[in-house]
């Protein structure tokens, strides 16, 4: 192993060497630079590897052959090595990225770059306070120099502002250093003795040093200068500024904090969280991509500062957590800046240009996901552990603030991603193979570190999960035609079902069937798609992977990871839809919000346990159990779109593609249901403030069931109608679950199955109609029955099943429902359910009537039957519904007996095909027999009497003794339930919607107002800086007294 000092020596040496090269040979200069950076990176990496694998121990590097503190010494531990690698690698890649501009400005610029990287490494390794100052100043000067790389003239002003600010900082720092020296008689960091906060010399000196170093982290709100640099500097440099400088400065703070003692850690943590929240909030109002990235960087660094503040509480996991966040931030942020170098215009929506090159879109997605801490990236593990620690310490409010801010950040980033995928940009992409290659390398590094963090996690390594890899496999395969990929996908799902099905309890088994096999069936419809259908299969399979893993998950970690997978996958799926940008955004926002609720819930429940098996939820101490219950329930209810948290659903389901809608509606919603199943199975009834929470759930379910149905009846858009009806159906299921009795659960399960079948059927049918008529508005259709008979049949069967009219399976659900409510002592919520029942007829009839019956429009006369592949699954479902109606036992019996083991009762007696409860009987076969017989008899009778009826055109009608004018005016469809609306319209008032939009407006308003703080005047920035210092000082001292 070479001495790490070589990193510094190589950097400096090369910088000086450049001056000796011939004036003309800029190329050679560039190669020297890159070579030196490569050497530095290699040394750093080799140390990282060696230290990580335990081949060597941390090394102390003495200078001048004297012991510290008398001579400057440097240290290379694992943290130092890792950070130096980050710094040098960023430098190396950015050097390549900035090649053209470096050559333009000549070797002076290259020398500056070298010195910058050298100084950053030095700042990380040195253990001497004053030496730290020297390196800081080097960084400042080098930064001021590299800002000039930008062709943007405004960069000049930004650089000057930066200089002004850093002058103030260095004044503070020097005073602090000299008095610290006076207090400790040494400049060596390791000799700094712990000082409590106080108004005496030593502690004031420590305050000055710390605040100066923290100011280098661009804390909110004293960071306008940094944002200006981010906005105007060369993206290649911004990458360094964000990834490398940020990391180095953070480590400097950490080094001093580690010595300074707990009081100061708290201070840092405070500044950290304020910065994290403030920056992310202000980012909401940004439209300039690089400035947005700047805000995000500030936020991320604030977050890590917060973690550093918690270092001593985190103990061993500190490096893991901070490192995870840091490396994710570094890679993602650098990657994004590099990408921004390839985008010509600076508005967020201009990133739409990326679509010219699918690879870049994928990279964009990767970096965004990495930044938001989605699995399998390091930040995910880090957030997981961090929240767990917070929960164990009982720092609940901090946890809440942190999660909310993280949610805002995610919203900002995904809004951006949505724009990139949905908007259109006037400018074309600035194609540069180097840039693309560099971004690819960054992504590769991302995967690598993900693997490392997964290995260290102590949980399972997510990135090695087969389903995930299978989903990712479709990225390279995307060049194949869609059909081949479809075959692969279906095969994969079936295979996964086959290997995981064994050893599951019937409940999970049913859900596995719905989620995985159901997925395979629905994918049949995807055969309809022609061409390549880029970017469909990875998200789809990611979603199914998530659901497959969800059902088989055993620990809270697996559960949560699976949850995130399916959330993200479905988000990308939904985003594919025609006008789905805003809906996809609200979907991901709500879903992530729910996910964070889950995270918090699990963290509180785990209470410090490294791995927390799901079934331990039953042993959560009663002190915290109710809160865990509330959090988890909230998370799951967001997925099932209970009233109040439902506003994301209609848009998301309605705007999705033809074969996606059934997936996200028929299958995805079951994930939330499954979660509730597990939750209630493990935790049972919980009381909070004397309120039985399951009763709250009952009410919520009933409310959703009713309101959902009513709203559905008022929709003009067929898919929205179905979406609202999903809310209603899920309401029934939640209601059944919350009844907390055997039949209630059976009911819920029945709904899960039925809803999957008929909702998938209906969405496919409506989708098929849309394929042909190119509209989703029902009043524009009509009379399609003769043109699309099969679709009509499936809708007919679907709505009969759904409305619960005998003989189809829906009736079974109703029957179980009545028996269920007979065996509970809740009364009032039933009223809502009773009201919801008939309302179902309203929207169902409207669906079938306004599409298939009534008058056929002239422009639709040539409509053809829906495509075969879209019909096929429908027909399968029809067959299933009919058989399930006659023989419900084939699924229900096993589950029934299983639930029996949970509740220890057997309310249902299965004799043959007959079901008996203590209240009544359900004899499906007999019902079928009677109805079929009567029907046939009557039918024959009619034919006998009426065989010679003359077929007339549909328009051959008379009313009010007049021939109607034309179909368009004759088809009664728009606002179909006008009278009902007159009576019940008040239920339409968008309470939830206005509430949530109010929240978002409030946030945006705050952001827009607050950012006016950054006047752009360098002097003002300096004033703000001083103000910040004073404020922190007063707060700190105030905290003392």
């Amino acid at each position, binding site marked *: 192993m070479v001495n790490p000092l070589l990193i510094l020596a190589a950097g400096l040496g090369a910088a000086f060497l450049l001056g000796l090269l011939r004036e003309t040979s800029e190329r050679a200069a560039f190669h020297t630079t890159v070579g030196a950076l490569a050497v530095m990176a290699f040394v750093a990496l080799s140390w990282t590897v060696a230290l990580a694998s335990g081949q060597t121990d941390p090394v102390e590097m003495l200078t001048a052959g004297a012991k510290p503190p008398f001579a400057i010494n440097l240290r290379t531990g694992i943290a130092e090595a890792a950070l130096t690698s980050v710094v040098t690698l960023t430098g190396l890649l950015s050097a390549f990225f900035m090649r053209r501009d470096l050559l333009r400005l000549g070797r002076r610029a290259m020398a500056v770059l070298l010195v910058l990287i050298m100084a950053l490494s030095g700042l990380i390794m040195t253990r001497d306070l*004053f030496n730290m100052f*020297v390196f800081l*100043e080097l960084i*400042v*000067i080098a930064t*001021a*120099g590299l800002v000039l790389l930008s062709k943007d*003239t*405004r960069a*000049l*002003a*930004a*650089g*000057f*502002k930066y*200089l*002004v600010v*850093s*002058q*103030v900082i*260095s*004044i503070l720092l*020097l*005073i602090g*250093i*000299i*008095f610290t*020296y*006076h207090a400790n008689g040494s*400049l060596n960091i390791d000799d700094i003795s712990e000082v409590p906060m106080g108004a005496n010399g030593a502690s004031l000196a420590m305050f000055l040093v710390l605040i100066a170093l923290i100011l280098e982290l661009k804390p909110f709100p004293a960071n*306008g200068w940094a*944002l*200006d640099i981010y*906005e*105007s500097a060369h993206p290649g440099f911004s990458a360094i500024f964000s990834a490398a400088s940020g990391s180095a400065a953070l480590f400097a703070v950490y080094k001093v904090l580690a010595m300074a003692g707990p009081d100061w850690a708290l201070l840092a943590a405070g500044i950290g969280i304020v910065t994290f929240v403030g920056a992310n909030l202000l980012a909401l*109002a940004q439209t300039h991509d690089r400035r947005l990235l700047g805000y995000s960087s500030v936020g991320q660094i604030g977050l890590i500062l917060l973690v550093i503040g918690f270092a001593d509480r985190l103990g061993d996991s500190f490096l893991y957590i901070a490192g995870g966040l840091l490396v994710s931030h570094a890679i993602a942020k650098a990657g994004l800046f590099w990408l921004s170098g390839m985008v010509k215009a600076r508005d967020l929506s201009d990133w739409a240009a990326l679509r010219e090159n699918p690879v870049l879109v994928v990279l964009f997605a990767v970096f965004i996901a990495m930044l938001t801490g989605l699995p399998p990236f390091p930040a995910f593990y880090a957030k997981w552990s961090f929240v767990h620690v917070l929960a164990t310490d009982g720092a609940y409010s901090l946890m809440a603030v942190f999660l909310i801010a993280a949610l805002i950040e995610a919203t900002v980033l995904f809004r951006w991603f949505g724009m990139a995928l949905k908007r259109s940009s006037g400018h074309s992409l600035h194609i540069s193979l180097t840039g693309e290659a560099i971004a690819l390398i960054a992504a590769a590094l991302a995967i690598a570190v993900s693997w490392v963090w997964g290995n260290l996690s102590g949980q399972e390594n997510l990135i090695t999960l087969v389903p995930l890899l299978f989903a990712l496999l479709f990225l390279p395969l995307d060049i194949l035609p869609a059909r081949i990929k479809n075959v692969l996908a279906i095969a994969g799902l079936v295979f996964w079902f086959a290997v995981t099905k064994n050893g599951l309890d019937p409940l999970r088994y049913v859900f596995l069937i719905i989620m995985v096999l159901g997925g395979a069936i629905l994918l049949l419809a995807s055969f309809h798609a022609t061409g390549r259908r880029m970017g469909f299969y990875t998200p789809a399979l990611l979603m199914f992977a998530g659901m497959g893993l969800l059902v088989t998950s055993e620990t809270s970690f697996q559960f949560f990871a699976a949850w995130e997978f399916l959330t993200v996958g479905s988000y990308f799926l939904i985003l594919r839809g025609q006008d789905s940008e805003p809906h996809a955004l609200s979907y991901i926002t709500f879903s992530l919000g729910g996910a964070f609720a889950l995270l918090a819930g699990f963290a509180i429940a785990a209470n410090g346990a490294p791995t927390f098996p799901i079934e331990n939820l039953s042993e959560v101490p009663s002190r915290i159990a109710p809160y865990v219950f509330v959090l988890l329930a909230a998370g799951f209810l967001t997925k099932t779109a209970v009233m109040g948290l439902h506003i994301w659903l209609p848009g998301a389901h309605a705007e999705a593609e033809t074969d996606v809608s059934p997936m996200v509606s028929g299958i995805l919603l079951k994930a939330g249901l499954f979660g509730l199943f597990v939750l209630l199975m493990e935790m049972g009834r919980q009381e909070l403030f004397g309120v039985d929470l399951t009763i709250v759930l009952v009410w919520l379910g009933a409310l959703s069931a009713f309101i959902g149905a009513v709203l559905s009846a008022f929709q003009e858009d067929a898919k929205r109608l179905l979406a609202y009806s999903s809310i209603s159906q899920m309401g029934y299921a939640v209601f059944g679950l919350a009844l907390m009795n055997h039949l209630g659960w059976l009911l819920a399960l029945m709904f899960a199955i039925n809803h999957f079948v008929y909702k998938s059927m209906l969405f496919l049918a409506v989708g098929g109609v849309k394929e042909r008529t190119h509209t989703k508005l029902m009043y524009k259709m009509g009379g399609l029955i003769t043109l699309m008979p099969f679709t009509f049949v499936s809708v007919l069967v679907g709505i009969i099943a759904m409305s619960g009219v005998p003989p189809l399976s829906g009736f079974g659900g109703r029957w179980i429902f009545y028996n269920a409510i007979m065996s509970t002592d809740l009364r009032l919520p039933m009223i809502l359910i009773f009201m919801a029942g008939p309302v179902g007829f309203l929207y169902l009839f409207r669906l079938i009537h306004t599409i298939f019956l009534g008058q056929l429009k002239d422009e639709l006369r040539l409509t053809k039957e829906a495509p075969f592949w879209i019909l096929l699954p429908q027909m399968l479902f029809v067959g299933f519904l009919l058989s399930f109606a006659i023989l419900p036992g084939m699924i229900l019996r096993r589950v029934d007996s299983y639930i029996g083991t949970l509740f220890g009762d057997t309310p249902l007696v299965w004799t043959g095909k007959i079901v008996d409860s203590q209240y009544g009987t359900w004899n499906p076969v007999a019902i079928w027999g009677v109805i079929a017989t009567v029907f046939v008899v009557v039918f024959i009778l009619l034919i006998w009497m009426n065989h010679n009826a003359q077929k007339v055109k549909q328009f051959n009608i008379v009313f009010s003794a007049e021939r109607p004018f034309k179909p368009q005016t004759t088809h009664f469809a728009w606002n179909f339930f006008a009278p009902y609306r007159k009576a019940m319209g008040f239920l339409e008032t968008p309470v939830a919607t206005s509430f949530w939009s109010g929240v978002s407006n409030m946030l945006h308003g705050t952001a827009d107002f607050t*950012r*006016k703080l*950054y*006047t*752009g*005047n*360098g*002097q003002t920035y*300096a*004033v703000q800086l*001083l103000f910040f210092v004073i404020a922190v000082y007063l707060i700190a001292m105030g905290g003392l007294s």
Partner: protein
Amino acid sequence: MTLVQISLATGFALIFLGLYGALSNRNILRMIVSFTIASTGVNLVLVAVGYLPGREAPILDTIPVASAAERITDPVPQALVLTAIVIGLGVTALMLAYAYRLFRARGSLDISDFTELKW
């Protein structure tokens, strides 16, 4: 008031002057000058902290090595101040260069004229 205190006080006073000037003057050149004043103050504070009453400069041409520890002042701050001075000079030069470029770019030296980047 001892020598040390006097110099310390002067140092701090210079820092205030410098900072105040830098924060209240809009003219870039004036700001730069103010900063140099401030950093002079800082340097003064540096050496002052290193001073031990009644001792001599740490150069052992007249002082015997044996009795050095009793007779010389603290050499460290003097070493530090040198570095500080040089760095201050570097930054000042840089700021001047920037000022020149800014002036060329906008024909103005008023800091409040360079606020295209904001919010």
